[in-house]
């Protein structure tokens, strides 16, 4: 069979890395649109409006549809560091209010109009560093989407009655999270791993905060953080880039930039001793363990190596912990995630512990493996190759379709300043050596840098 081999295709990533460097030194406007070809073969166009709005358009003409995402550089950490708010949960609560009417589009009309015109997967999410809004539509409705999205970027109206009704839905979401022991454990993990940085606070906030948020606070939050100079638009799909750029200028060009309220969050002090907490939950049938190690910010040079290390430990049935935990009868499952954030993040591992076994048994087995990995005398090249290929497979899967590709690229808009970083990250991960993995394991996956959360049946 004739097919470009992996090394050939990945060599394209290197040129993307150069491109990121070049782009970082260039101030773009819509009159200086940059075009490049991505490693998946699709052309990407990028530019910036004078009001600061960043734009990325990836052309994919496979089907007459497109995905439209708006990324705001504001998340739950920002509300906590804003002295006028000093709260958690408002970023998320406000995300709900973005669907409840503007000066021009009454409550319910945003959803109704998009739905009637064929929207797919319209939603929004709030996370620690950002809030994103997204929808996929038939190609012919690009202008309609821009009209509606630009309108809610500039013209939201906070109605007290609607705010109170939506408060009920947010409290419902909060209640749903409390019934899920995995969610409770995850919140406790962040709260314990971080002592000072606002990543320690739950995105959804506390019940008391959700109940007390006022119309004035919501209006302040909107006025301060929802501005074109704090946003990026990413479009992936069947669009004409010239037409799309002209529509963006037409609909977003009049949005006024604003002074932003971001404050530099406090730096999390280095952890010097292992932390361990436990909780009880009525829904737990068997113990649950969550583990976190502090790691650097998303753009740090060690992150691609840590991604390979994460894959070695938890990706696939051949992963180290699948073997030493699941197949050894200690746990029911294992999963892991490298939580990449704008500020230093976490390397997390979780499992349901098999009845009759103690969480400590899992820690002992893992520590033994981490020592083996870090030991210079041991050959781990085969494990690194397996992990690298598993990582590449997960990347290639994410290139299937507009929504998936936009998801693959979008998070890097916030954490790295450009969605192209997604491809740079992959090209770097491809070059990781076994020695680099050993060094990363010895540096980051040590007990003094570890937080452990144990969940038990009530």
């Amino acid at each position: 069979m004739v097919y470009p081999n992996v090394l050939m295709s990945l060599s394209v990533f290197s040129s993307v890395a150069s491109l990121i460097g070049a782009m970082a030194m260039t101030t773009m406007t819509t009159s200086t649109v940059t075009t490049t070809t991505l490693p998946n073969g699709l052309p990407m166009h990028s530019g910036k409006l004078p009001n600061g709005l960043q734009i990325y358009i990836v052309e994919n003409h496979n089907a007459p549809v497109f995905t439209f995402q708006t990324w705001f550089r504001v998340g739950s950490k920002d509300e906590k560091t804003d002295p006028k708010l000093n709260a958690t949960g408002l970023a998320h609560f406000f995300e709900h209010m973005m669907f409840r009417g503007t000066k021009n589009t009454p409550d319910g009309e945003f959803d109704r109009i998009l739905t009637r015109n064929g929207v797919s997967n319209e939603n929004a999410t709030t996370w620690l560093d950002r809030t994103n809004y997204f929808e996929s539509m038939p190609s012919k409705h690009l202008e309609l989407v821009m009209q509606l999205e630009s309108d809610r970027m500039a013209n939201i109206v906070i109605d007290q009655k609607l705010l109170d009704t939506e408060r009920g839905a947010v409290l419902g979401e909060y209640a749903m999270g409390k019934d899920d022991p995995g969610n409770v454990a995850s919140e406790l993990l962040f709260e314990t791993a971080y002592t000072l940085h606002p990543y320690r606070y739950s995105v959804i906030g506390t019940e008391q905060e959700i109940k007390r948020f006022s119309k004035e606070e919501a209006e302040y939050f909107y006025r301060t953080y929802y501005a074109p100079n704090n946003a990026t638009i990413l479009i992936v799909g069947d669009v004409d880039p010239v037409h799309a750029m002209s529509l963006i200028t037409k609909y977003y060009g009049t949005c006024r930039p604003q002074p932003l309220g971001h404050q530099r969050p406090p730096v999390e002090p280095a952890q010097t001793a292992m932390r361990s907490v436990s909780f009880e939950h009525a829904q737990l049938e068997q113990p649950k363990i969550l583990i976190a190690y502090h790691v650097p910010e998303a753009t740090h040079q060690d992150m691609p190596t840590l991604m390979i290390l994460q894959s070695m430990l938890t990706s696939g049935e051949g992963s180290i912990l699948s073997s030493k935990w699941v197949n050894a009868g200690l746990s029911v499952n294992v999963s892991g995630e490298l939580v990449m954030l704008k500020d230093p993040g976490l390397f997390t591992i979780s499992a349901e512990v098999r009845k009759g076994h103690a969480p400590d048994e899992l820690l002992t087995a893992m520590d033994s493996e981490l020592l083996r990995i870090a030991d210079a005398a041991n050959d781990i090249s085969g494990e690194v190759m397996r992990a690298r290929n598993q990582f590449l497979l997960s990347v290639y899967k994410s290139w299937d379709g507009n929504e998936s590709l936009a998801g693959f690229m979008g998070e890097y808009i916030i954490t790295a300043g450009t969605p192209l970083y997604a491809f740079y990250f992959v090209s770097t991960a491809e070059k990781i050596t076994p020695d680099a993995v050993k060094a990363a394991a010895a540096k980051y996956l040590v007990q003094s840098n570890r937080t452990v959360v144990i969940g038990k049946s009530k």
Partner: protein
Amino acid sequence: MNPRKPALLAGALAMITAATGNTFSTSAAPALVIEQDALMKNAVVQVIVRSGSLSDPDDMPGLANLVARAMLRGTQTKNYPRLTEAVESIGGSLEVRTDREITVFTGSVIAVNFNAFMMLVSEIMSAPAFDDDEVATLKGIVKGELLTRMQQPKILAAMAALGTAFAGHKAANATQGTVAGVDAAGIWALRAFHRERYVRSNMLVACVSPYAVPEAEKALRAAMSVLPPGTLDARSVPAPVMTGRRAVIVEKQDMSTTPLFIALPGVAPGDKDMMALEVGNFVFGADFTSRLIRVLRVENGWTYGAYSGFEQLYRSQSSQTLFSLYTYPSAVHAARALPKAFELLEAWISKGLSEDEFAAARDALSGRYAFNIDTPSKRLDLRVAEVLGGAPFMTARQYDVKLSGLARNDVNAVIEKRLKLENVVIAAAGDGAVLKPVLEKIPGVLSVDTVVVSP
């Protein structure tokens, strides 16, 4: 040639050109469904065995699932670690899911290693080891998973609904079976199940890759040629045995929400009325703009989500399903949300859609259909569903023509005729002291029982 339903009997290869421009090919024994996407850097393969949990022996619920998962734990020439290493080191992954009527192995691999991957798939399908120690380990894992499922209140409510709707039949079981069933399955049972069901006539292989169809077809055929021809073992989910309106409660304390299902007999995926019912369901509970979300969440703030559909309780390829409403109001609002949900269901079935709602739903579904076929993987899934007895694959144009042939009165008549509220199960997980009086007040409810759901 015109697109048509591929034959499953032995016969000559049929080549069909799809509307997307990619070539689509089917053949028999096993049937092959192939899509090409030249831009893909990975290949996706589905091996579908037309035996699922309905093929479990009565005393071994979970056998089909156990067999499939045991097959991934070693072959006659490669033990579990070696097999896993062989698959994953080439950038491959292989997972398995058991439904009631089928078992699906889904594999992905970096495209350059497609041939090597298919050879491994072939070995797994034809020569599994069913090693004693590995099966014992697997049984421990599966039993742990069954216990873990019990942590999800939604699962408890769903199992209570299925247990009532299919009382006494194996369709009520989780597809993973039960702890007792898993314990009862000996190696001999696994081998016998594999010998009878993993045969070419009982399988369908689907693939989407960057390779030209003839090349992919050659690799698939070679991989499956080592299996014996055998016979088809297609089974159907029986009709639910519901009598009157019954409510069941799974007692759960300390809950912040109250997950609940309201279920009634539905229709099969390939039913002639399915499109009309989809239009109706879009108005009722399939979308964020639907009545359920609008009333229960947007207007009242009682719940975060409320949905309805034909596959919420279980997925079927060709049999009648249960139509169900699912919501999870905050516990403090459950007493108001539950009767309101039932009232909305009654009103929808008896009064149908307004003209505005019908027009909006038709427009929405027409525009949205493009997203059902916008990637090769999605098109492949629809082709596979068609072969398994689901609705015929349609291009966007074909879908529009069929949709535009529906009138509001047709849709309303179909809803009233096919979805009957005489036989209903309401299943909720939460505080019985709160739920029982609420359920007893639902019009026509004959009984409210507390049930135990165990793994």
